[in-house]
């Protein structure tokens, strides 16, 4: 069995600096969950389809199952844990709660990080735009309707449009 050399990496996750030694093959998703204990990032397919593992790398959304931790050397990573807390939810989280946009909650962290990206970088003029922007995240519980409503409210708020 071939063994690879380990690599030292330094990165910032949710504002905190980390210096760790990793095997090159360690997926960023596993690094976040197992090395750092940030289990809010969920793993649903490990082939880039379901979107549950979506985080933000250097300010844009990315699948953490399709990156190796070594590739994040020097990067700034944000996970769901960077949003609000149980006692003080982030506005996106509040909107999801208000509109019942989650059921089992497994896909939710990936949706939240995707929505953060959509709100920062996409116009979301129509609900079709919202659905298109969400189409890289699979939810099996909600049928998406309530998620779309939550994002519509957030986009309107961003744009100063009455809901």
């Amino acid at each position, binding site marked *: 069995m071939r063994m690879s050399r380990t690599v030292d990496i330094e990165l910032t996750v949710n504002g905190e600096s980390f210096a760790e030694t990793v095997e090159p093959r360690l997926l960023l998703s596993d690094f976040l969950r197992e090395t750092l204990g940030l289990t809010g990032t969920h793993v649903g397919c490990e082939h880039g389809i379901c979107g549950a593992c979506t985080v933000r790398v250097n300010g844009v959304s990315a699948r953490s199952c399709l990156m190796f931790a070594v590739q994040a050397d020097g990067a700034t990573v944000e996970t769901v844990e960077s949003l609000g807390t149980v006692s003080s939810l982030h506005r996106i989280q509040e909107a999801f709660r208000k509109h019942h946009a989650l059921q089992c909650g497994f*896909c939710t962290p990936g949706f939240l990080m995707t929505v953060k990206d959509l709100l920062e970088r996409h116009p979301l003029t129509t609900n079709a735009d919202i659905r298109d922007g969400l189409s890289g995240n699979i939810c099996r519980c909600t049928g998406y309707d309530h998620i779309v409503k939550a994002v519509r409210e957030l986009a309107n708020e961003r744009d100063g449009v009455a809901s």
Partner: protein
Amino acid sequence: MPMNDAAFQPGPSTPVPLSEDDVLVSSRPKYVGKPVQRLEDPRLLTGAGRYVADMVINRMVHVAFLRSDQSHARILAIRTEAARAATGVIGVYTAADFSDIPPVVATSRMRNYHATSNPALAVDKVRYVGEPVAVVVAKSRYLAEDALALIEVDYEPLDAVIEPEAAAASTTALLHDQFGTNVIFERVFQTGEASQVLAAAPLSVKGRFRFHRKSPLFMENRSYLAEYDRGRDLLTLHSSTQIPGIVRDVLSSLLAMPGKVRVVAPDVGGGFGGKGSLYQEEIIVSALARKLGRPVKFVSDRMEDLASSSQGFDELVEAELGFDETGRFLALKADVLGDIGAYSIYPWTAALEPVQVVSFLPGAYKIPNYFGRVRGVATSKAPTGPYRGVGRPTSVFVLERLVDMAAHKLGMDPKDLRHRNLVGADEFPYRIGSGIIWERSGFVECLDRACEVIDYEALRQRQQAARKQGRWLGIGIATYAELTGIGSRISVAPGMPINTGNESATVRIDSTGAVTAIFGVASHGQSLETTLAQIVAEELGVRPQDVEIVHGDSAATAHGTGTYASRSAVIGGGAAILTTRALREKVKRVASHLLEASVEDIETGDGRIFVRGTDHQITFAELARAVYSDMQTLPLDKREKLEASESFDPYLGTTTTATHIALVEIDPETYGVKLQRFVVAEDCGRMINPLVVDGQVHGGVAQGIGAALLEELVFDGQGQLLTASLVDYMVPTAVEVPAIEVSHLESVLPNNPGGFRGMGEGGTIGAPAAVANAIADALAPLGIEIFELPATPERLFRLISAAGAIPGKAGAGFPSGIAQETNAMEE
């Protein structure tokens, strides 16, 4: 999910009278029926939920399973030496290492049923691609997977058993030799003389319908973590299961550890029935934890989950409906062949799914003569098990297609034909041909409401106008009824070795005044931590956020089977009501002493206990202190135990109904199908939380849309699963699912403490049929019917080609012109 036997006795059908409380008390805040924000949300939204994969225990090791790459083969040899020597490997095990664990057998008293012997790891033979053959224990999942590649298995291939009809006919290619057949059960349901009446019927329609196999595809792959306390000989399995109580019971027996097994379902990422059965991996990680004295974790990956989690549906149905010239249904006859896969799954048996197809086939209609035969045939594919809707997505698809075909033949509007035959408001209780008895529910009301919401008549006119422009618009109705919240009278009938008809609750007030409510159900997305808290809070007079709900832990209750079969609101909620009312009586008795008032004048609400019409009041904390801690205030005989425990068994079930209407537009050239609107009108009785009800309907409909348009597990002739990734097993995204318009109505409240009807599965029951009918309606001018789901563009292409309806050349026969050929990007 439960199976139904013929000849049910009608139960009491009178609506529950309002309780004295409801009449007398208006001051106690009402939470049931309110869109209370979910109590589980803050943790799930912040990544603070705890799913099995998130759990870490000291000295924990990881496993990976070597799974069969053959669908049917004899195991000649398994060589594990190289894998044992690999880096980080702690052990490699095969069936021989677990010879002390008996195979699992899903028994049933059903006649003509062969119970398969289901080994935890394959013994002698493999029977589907994905069946666990060996297990590697290693320091990480990465290292365990490295070692898998070093295990060598010699197989002697046997004939793959793939096509259900050929499998049923074969006496040589047998999956389980000892039965002498692949048909492992057969049942018949009969009322009247269906064959004779059909033969004499003035009109009839028939078809050969195929509903293809699905994956429940919960987002959290199955995950198990077993820990063994060697000092106490206690085994705890943390499992992504819907049925911790059932798993506890069977593991205790398999591992010969009575009283020493606890099964806990922490946060569970969806189930939809797919986590509602016992899995081999649960047995193996438990046995390994005991064997190794270390915590053992298994987290399935998506590929193995698609290959090995229980699969859904998969039936071939030949059915015929006879009717007279006025459209009155006379007789229905059906022959159902269920492809059940390799094993009869525990505890439900392989009969669960196909038998429900036959028992629900007569649907919500008056059809005086019925004959339905069902056979389940074993094939060399993964076992089937419960998937949301169980049987009824297929039965509703078949029946509702026949109804639309009949309407077409009669030249009658499909809505009117349904009206003519639905069980009317004054005709309940109504016994259908399979023996199921419908209690009063809003069959006709839901049809009317759905048509009203979508403005059916206007839509038909719009369709006519669109057709003139060459556009293919289709409107599809599906009306169905289901039994939910089913009590012990029904579920025990087919002879399953468990009682699914009962749940208990314990509600207590501790010495700080905090309220805890303990249930045997196991929420995995259904919001039970909120809805059960709403019920307890309203009944007791506290706020929902003051109620801690304990669920999903076999150690918390003596008996409880879990969450499945649209049962938790009715049965768990019923137990919550009965229990909390008993506790509130105790609270009132104690308070009457403390407040020096009569029990009748004591009221509770918003966390306070007070004397009606006065400002005399105490808090629950003060009450608790008086009972538990303060030795002065209450005499000994007044210090009641602030705890109650009751169970609830609805005995029969409640009838839930809905009408779904889908509007589709099909691209007349590419045959791409786009859902334009989807309306649901449903009667789930009294809603506990309308937000949650809407969410359940939406999610169910989305799965039904997937079943109708996209989802299919495809096997090749050798039994290889070709759809083993999410690239190929396609579930709907936000783009494929339209906004879903839900309208609720309460006809008459059903006969259970809360007036609730179960509704968790309904979306998936109605949607496939509604979409299929809409597609058939869009294609009606071409004379095309839909007999097979999913109706993929490829299948539509074949149907339209076969009908000779494809315009010869591109652009011919369609309104064309550059101006109209704009790209959607520019709109």
